[in-house]
């Protein structure tokens, strides 16, 4: 699993073997392939970019071309043990609605996102007065697909407002796990496991 992006490795390590998974925004299928091959998971994917879908098909994965904002409605309730949304929440038009849909089609949901309250982001705003361009947020504000930035604290507030349960939270900095302490300052990525 070492080849996986760190947030995906966290998710892969915490998905129960043999479960049914929907990976929303599955990209080229790297996580799905690991889940299938190493954890005997029945993995399905949804992905917007046709080139990525073709890549997934070539890996023998089952992937539907679709949009997280509009196409989750096509899945029945509780069709999956887990719905996964990695590094995609911040690109959706309505993250709150997408979160609802994730926990409708999946009994649990993994959500990973870049933390906009990381100290480098804060420093960029503080010292330069500009929207940050960092390793995890590499695109300038006017062309970034990340239209709904959030912080760890923002996300916890939304989860609480929706009455969702946090079953697990993992924080990453420089691709390494860090402790929960002051995560809103120190974490570049966050991964949450949620349930209703």
């Amino acid at each position, binding site marked *: 699993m070492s080849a996986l992006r760190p947030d995906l490795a966290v998710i892969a390590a915490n998905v129960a073997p043999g479960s049914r998974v929907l990976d929303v925004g599955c990209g080229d299928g790297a996580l799905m392939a690991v889940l299938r091959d190493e954890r005997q998971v029945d993995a*399905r994917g949804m992905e917007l970019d*046709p*080139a990525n*879908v*073709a*890549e*997934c*098909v*070539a*890996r*023998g*994965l*089952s*992937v*539907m*071309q*679709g949009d997280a904002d509009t196409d989750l409605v*096509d*899945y*029945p309730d509780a069709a999956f043990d887990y719905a996964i949304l990695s590094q995609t929440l911040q690109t959706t038009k309505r993250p709150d609605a997408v979160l609802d849909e994730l926990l409708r089609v999946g009994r649990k949901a993994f959500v990973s996102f870049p933390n906009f309250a990381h100290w480098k982001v804060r420093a960029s705003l503080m010292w330069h007065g500009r929207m940050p361009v960092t390793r995890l947020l590499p695109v300038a504000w006017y062309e970034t697909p990340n239209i709904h930035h959030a912080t760890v604290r923002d996300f916890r507030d939304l989860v609480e407002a929706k009455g969702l349960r946090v079953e697990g939270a993992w924080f990453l900095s420089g691709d390494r796990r860090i402790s929960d302490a002051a995560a809103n300052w120190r974490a570049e990525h966050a991964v949450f496991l949620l349930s209703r």
Partner: protein
Amino acid sequence: MTAAELNLVNQTLVLPAALPLDGGQSLSSVEVAYETVGTLNPEKSNAILLFHALTMDQHVVSAHPKTGKPGWWSKSVGPGKVIDTSRFFVICANVLGGCMGTTGPASLAADGTPYAMRFPVITIRDMVRAQVALLDALGIEQVHAVVGGSMGGMQALSFAANWPERTRAVLVIASTARHSAQNIAFHEVGRQAIMADPKWKGGDYHGAGKGPEAGLAVARMAAHITYLSEAGLTDKFGRNLQDRAAKTFGFDADFQVESYLRHQGLSFTDRFDANSYLYITRAMDYFDLAEEHGGRLAEAFAGARARFCLVSFDTDWLYPTAESRVIAHALNAAGAPVSFVELSAPYGHDSFLLDVPALDRVIAGFLNQ
């Protein structure tokens, strides 16, 4: 590459038993003309059954016997190609109702004269049933995959729904689970053009010299428009004039697009039988996979255990992406492993036969699993 190097064989099977039809009748002594490319392995596990579209035939790789043109998918089928015949044994049969060797309305009935309009109205499932009988005769219990575009995709879906245990994978390109009112409407224009031609003679034109060529040409012209995108036509022809500097103020083919369509229509009559066109378009119009299964498409796939892959094209307005999505959702609801992708290609419905590299990647990736 020679036929021997390709392991290319064309032959005709006479079905040993009468073929029951959805319309309630049955046909005896049905002939199925088919082409195979590649070598069937000793386990008989490497076959791919390829279904052809409305006006095509079994000549996937071999040159067409009437036009001399290369096989309709010779670009993609062959050793080392997208459908690799050094690995797979590809089978393609002319459909029931066709005019290239498989029994159809031009075939002789028991009384020694052509069936013509006495030929029973057939369905997509009847076409597939004849090809399942071919697999039986070849001793192939389960194919590696069934593959088809357009009407071939309908056959692939029908195969998956009605003979689910006989394939491990199903690839459907630019197709639909049912003919829409608009699809039926375009076909009806074509049929009426044929029937309005005095040379059609109620279908009894066989052996009477020229058939309803004018009507069949018009049918082909109308249909051909639906295979192309508006942008594709504009790119290719625009308002360009055909071999002239100015409009003639007459009804000659002033515009290139007119000349092109007339040519498409006329050359079609050299290779296709008008009654076959009536019967095959009727079969497509009758196709509604959900209707055969209580109105719910997901029910049609209740027994499906194969892997599915559906491909649509963004410029295809004949069988638009929404139709493929309907199928994909039904398969998801039935719990089948399914992939769906809409590819971008400028050519409209015909993209499935043209040079679309992204399609090649999807086909090869899906089949090589």
